[in-house]
């Protein structure tokens, strides 16, 4: 995989949460703006009513304006926050009554009241002003009435609404975030379920995925199924090839060996017999090498996709001992199996069998005649120990011995390819274990396969 890995679920979650956050902030701002407008309108309507009642109370008597201020004109401006009230009444540009400096002339007649936010007496005021021309003799009189009020109650209302809007916005966000988590999880569930189902399959299970998947996933599943079909065909092909190769190489070698032995019976000249013997040896070596190469290929192949099942190590060893006893007897060697009872582990039986057979093979090869090869199955920790009574491993080389095609310096003329220990080590590592080599004091060597 190239580039930074991204999580679809995380991306979906954050997109949804981010959207919810934007919506929550938007909600707060809209409510607040709207509330501000409404509250301001409310204050303006009351100021206008006060203004109108003052204007209505004005009469012109002999060119002089008299205003019998109605009690309600100011009483109606009573608010929860006890806002301060200011007013001014001007005839022309001259202040008749009220607060000086609240508004400044000159004034012009207007159709309706105007509203403004002004600073006066060290505070912000909402001011409403109305100028009217009153008919009178000898000349009409221009009257300007102004009423102003502090905005404490408005601010209180706005604060309360803002707090509520913020709470609602926050609650909405929390709810939406929770839903985002839930949604992304449930959206991703089919994907993870499919991944789980595929992961749960055995290594050789290459059947196509047939479970119902969301339509968005079906192209992926189709590609996956087609890939698995091709992989299955290719695997089958290589298995067939390995079996075929083993058959094709081993059978002619056996035929050649048979012929060579028959010829050996018939020739008498010493130099010819020696040549034939070395030929037979070479054939043995080739046959064995071919077998081990196939074993090694098999181990490499199976190690990548193991099929673990419950196997009894003692059973495997006993079967091998039975099978190899004739070979051992030919060299006057004894095979001894030591085990207390069945040792059952989860392992690939074919691989284990291969590894143990190679270890026993090695031991048989390097043991002097009349000796014994001891095979011990331990339960705790699970291990198979194969010991011989030969010369032992060269101490300096112990670390390198299990590498491919490495043979001990003291191998001499013993037939071998150098793959036996490698196979055993690969099998141990495929099972999560290791191979340990050690010399026994007083002669002999032990290979221990830990699983």
């Amino acid at each position: 995989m190239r580039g930074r890995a991204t999580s679809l679920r995380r991306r979906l979650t954050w997109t949804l949460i981010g959207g919810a956050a934007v919506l929550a902030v938007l909600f707060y701002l809209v409510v607040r703006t709207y509330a501000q407008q409404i509250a301001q309108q409310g204050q303006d309507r009351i100021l206008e009513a006060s203004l109108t009642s003052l204007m209505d109370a004005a009469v012109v008597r002999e060119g002089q304006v008299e205003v019998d201020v109605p009690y309600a004109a100011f009483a109606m401006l009573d608010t929860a926050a006890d806002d301060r009230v200011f007013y001014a009444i001007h005839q022309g540009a001259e202040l008749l009554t009220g607060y000086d400096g609240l508004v400044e002339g000159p004034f012009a007649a207007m159709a309706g009241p105007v509203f403004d936010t002004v600073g006066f007496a060290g505070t912000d005021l909402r001011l409403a002003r109305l100028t009217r021309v009153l008919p009178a003799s000898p000349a009409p009189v221009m009257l300007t009435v102004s009423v102003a009020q502090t905005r404490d109650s408005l601010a209180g209302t706005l604060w309360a609404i803002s707090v509520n809007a913020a709470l609602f916005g926050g609650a909405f966000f929390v709810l939406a975030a929770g839903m985002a988590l839930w949604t992304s999880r449930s959206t991703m569930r089919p994907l993870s379920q499919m991944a789980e189902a595929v992961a749960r399959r055995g290594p050789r299970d290459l059947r196509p995925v047939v479970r119902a998947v969301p339509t968005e996933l079906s192209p992926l599943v189709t590609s996956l199924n087609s890939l698995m079909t091709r992989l299955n065909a290719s695997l089958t092909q290589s298995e067939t090839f390995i079996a075929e190769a083993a058959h094709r190489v081993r059978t002619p070698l056996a035929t050649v060996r048979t012929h060579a032995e028959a010829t050996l019976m018939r020739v008498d000249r010493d130099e010819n017999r020696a040549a034939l013997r070395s030929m037979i040896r070479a054939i043995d070596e080739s046959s064995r090498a071919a077998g081990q190469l196939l074993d090694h290929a098999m181990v490499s192949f199976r190690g990548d996709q193991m099929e673990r099942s419950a196997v009894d190590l003692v059973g495997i060893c006993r079967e091998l001992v039975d099978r190899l006893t004739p070979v051992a007897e030919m060299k006057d060697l004894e095979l001894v199996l030591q085990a207390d009872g069945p040792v059952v582990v989860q392992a690939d039986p074919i691989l284990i069998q291969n590894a143990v057979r190679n270890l026993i093979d090695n031991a048989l090869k390097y043991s002097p005649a009349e000796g014994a090869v001891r095979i011990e199955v331990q339960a705790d920790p699970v291990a198979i120990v194969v010991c011989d009574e030969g010369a032992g491993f060269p101490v300096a080389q112990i670390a390198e011995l299990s590498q491919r095609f490495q043979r001990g310096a003291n191998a001499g003329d013993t037939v071998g390819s150098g793959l036996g220990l490698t196979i055993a080590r690969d099998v141990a590592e495929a099972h999560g274990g290791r191979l340990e080599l050690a010399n026994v004091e007083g002669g002999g060597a032990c290979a221990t396969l830990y699983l």
Partner: protein
Amino acid sequence: MRNFVFVILCLWASLAAAAELEDRQTFHGENGVTLRVLSSTDTDIFAPILEGFIARNPSVSIDYAVAGSADIVTLIEDCPDCFDVVISSAMDLQLKLANDGLARRLPGLARSSDTQWRQSLFGFTLEPATMVLNRAAFEGRKMPTTRQELIEALRAEPERFRGRLGTYDVRLSGLGYLFATQDARTSETFWRLMEVFGNLDARLYCCSGDMIDDLASGELFVAYNVLGSYTQTRPETLDKVAVITPEDFATTMMRTALVLDTTELGETAAALVAYLTSGAWAAQDRPGFPLPSLRDAEAQMLSVVSLDPGLLVYLDRLKRALFLEAWASALLR
């Protein structure tokens, strides 16, 4: 028109007259700060409250100055730095001081909204305007309990009551003006009563105390819109006068206190206001104490003059001129 000119002259006279203190005394604590209080309440009435406060706050001395409620506004406007606390019975003038931004806000003094305005003006007494009658003058006669009954009693024997009636001169007394304007707002009966008073050559007073003195001496038979509680300070008058709270409606005012924003003794001033509003001064073991605290009379809140911007209406120059014109034409014949 003649009346109008007269009113203007009166206004001019009252404005021109230099506002001055009627009394000034210092209540000594133990050499601490001195709180300067400007009040419309006579020193002898308020002294027990101040002594109570000093007993609780021994480090505070109080410089207690008395002035007429209308003069208080002038004094404060002339010299806002000269005082720390203002106490007055003229709710409208006090509200104007607070509205004009002279009062400090004391958010710590949580009160019901009925008895405070903008957390800067605090009511601490409830005192109804009453009719006070000379008992001897009504010997054998039914004592009036409403304005209408008083009007009928006066009309029945005009010559007997001529020159024997008293009420506030609303041009001089801030409290008298408040009572008169609130009465006028409530009922037309007020104007009819004032016309009867005017016809019978009513005398005008600056203060409740003077009216009660004249009632006790027999100079007056009836005084209207008097603070009846003041009779309590004159025990010798109690058997000579009858205090009647009108049954039709009783205009009830709150004595209010505010802390001037310019004060440098904010905490001490706030402590005094807190003491006043707590009602702790209205001790039960002091019968006859003249100032009924809010707490004593919480149930009477019905016809109390409410602390709202409406109080500013009658302080408007034009409105005041119109009202005084009407008042003068009714009373000054």
